[in-house]
């Protein structure tokens, strides 16, 4: 469980996060949604301490994180897995080397055990055939899957995914969403996903937090989000023509 307690973050005097308090639950895919500039990415970067919070605290299963030393942060980060928006795969390494990297750096596994683990992770994301390719030789969807395989290689307790569906076609998006949800439930980890894709929200939104103007505006799940009377959330949810039609159709029924 990740507890966010009254955190604020400003850049050049502009408040991006304003007194945000949240709880991300273990074994669930926790989605953070909101429009562009709502503070989703800043929140995620604060969660993993790529940004230092100005006020407040972040607790990982009761362990204080944001105010701990660099060394303690580095230790706790070994329990993190992160899927970046662009994949953030190492260009100079093959798919296999990318997935093996955290194992070679931080595990005491033998070469053969690392090989088995990498094969398992690549198999888990259906990418066994691409192990010898470089990131520049694979598609966007494959990059995301490699990033997921790399993120789960060390059996993380906390998985962070920053807009994992951006730039992907709807079918591949569903594959990625399902993969994230399966991994979360299979390993009983705390997963935080940043997204503004409504399909993802309805697919895997076991817990949803809506951010607006750097504040928590609404909290619920994939069922309650369609029925909420919160005007801002409705504007976000029913922004697309497709969802407007669905709403009209359901109202007629």
């Amino acid at each position, binding site marked *: 469980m990740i507890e966010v307690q009254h955190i604020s973050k400003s850049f050049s005097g502009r408040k991006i996060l304003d007194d945000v308090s949240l709880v991300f639950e273990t074994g669930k895919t926790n989605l953070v949604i909101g429009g562009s500039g709502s503070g989703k990415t800043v929140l995620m970067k604060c969660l993993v301490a790529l940004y230092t919070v100005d006020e407040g605290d972040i607790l990982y299963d009761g362990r204080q994180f944001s105010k701990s030393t660099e060394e303690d942060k*580095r230790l706790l980060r*070994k329990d993190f897995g992160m899927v*970046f928006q662009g994949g953030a795969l190492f*260009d100079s390494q093959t798919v296999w080397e990318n997935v093996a990297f955290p194992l070679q750096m931080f595990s005491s596994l033998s070469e053969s055990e690392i090989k088995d683990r990498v094969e398992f992770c690549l198999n888990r994301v259906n990418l066994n055939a691409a192990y010898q390719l470089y990131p520049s030789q694979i598609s966007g969807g494959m990059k995301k899957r490699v990033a997921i395989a790399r993120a789960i290689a060390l059996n993380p307790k906390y998985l962070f995914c920053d807009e994992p569906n951006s730039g992907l076609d709807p079918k591949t998006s569903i594959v990625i969403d399902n993969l994230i949800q399966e991994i979360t439930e299979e390993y009983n980890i705390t997963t935080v996903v940043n997204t503004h894709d409504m399909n993802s929200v309805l697919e895997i939104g076991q817990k949803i937090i809506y951010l607006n103007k750097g504040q928590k505006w609404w909290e619920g799940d994939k069922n309650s989000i369609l029925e909420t009377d919160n005007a801002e959330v409705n504007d976000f949810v029913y922004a697309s023509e497709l969802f407007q039609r669905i709403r009209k159709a359901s109202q007629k029924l």
Partner: protein
Amino acid sequence: MKVFETLGKYFLFIGLVFSKPQQWKRFWKQFFFEINSLGINSLPIIMIISLFMGAALTIQTAYNITSPFIPLYAVGLATRDSILLEFSPTIISLILAGKVGSSIASELGMMRVTEQIDALEIMGVNSGSFLVLPKILAAIFINPFLIVISMFLGMAGGLIFGLLAGVVSTHEFVYGLQYAFVPFYVSYALIKTVVFAFLITSISAFFGYYAEGGALEVGVSSTKAVVYSSIILLLANYLLTQMMLS
């Protein structure tokens, strides 16, 4: 104030870089990779420049000696001292600041803007030490070899092209190379090389590591890396010369 802020940030960066590698095996692998990437790959351009600069130095010196009281072996002597004292350690280091500096800054800059450095940090890797320390130490190790090669080739170029131009004989040139030789000049050149290698790699890495934005900003960082490392290299050259030769 911005200068002091940047200077402070640079020293904090150096503190981050010079910490114990988290995995020695990977450090050595990366160290030898960088020796090849930063050093061996720079050899062709250094060889070409050294040969022709030695040639130009010899011919210019010979054509400028018009007094019959100055012996012709002075051509070899002037070429040797110019190459040992300034040309090889300073000019070649300036060329390396352009070639190696821009390569380091753009590589790290691209890693920064594509979030690869963030990915390392989140895994618990000290990205500064992991990415930059092998580059700095590899340059400090390999650059003296490059400069010694440059010294030999500069003098060889002077001899070959001096003979081809008919401005000096082999005997006079070689006698000039050996005449009144001060071994300390080689030590002085190598000490300068080591300092320059550190400055080029650390300053370029600093600008690349803290690049922000996209491809345009990476280009700006790369340019800044070359400009600042060249200026600071020249400043360090002046200070070292003042300290060691005065």
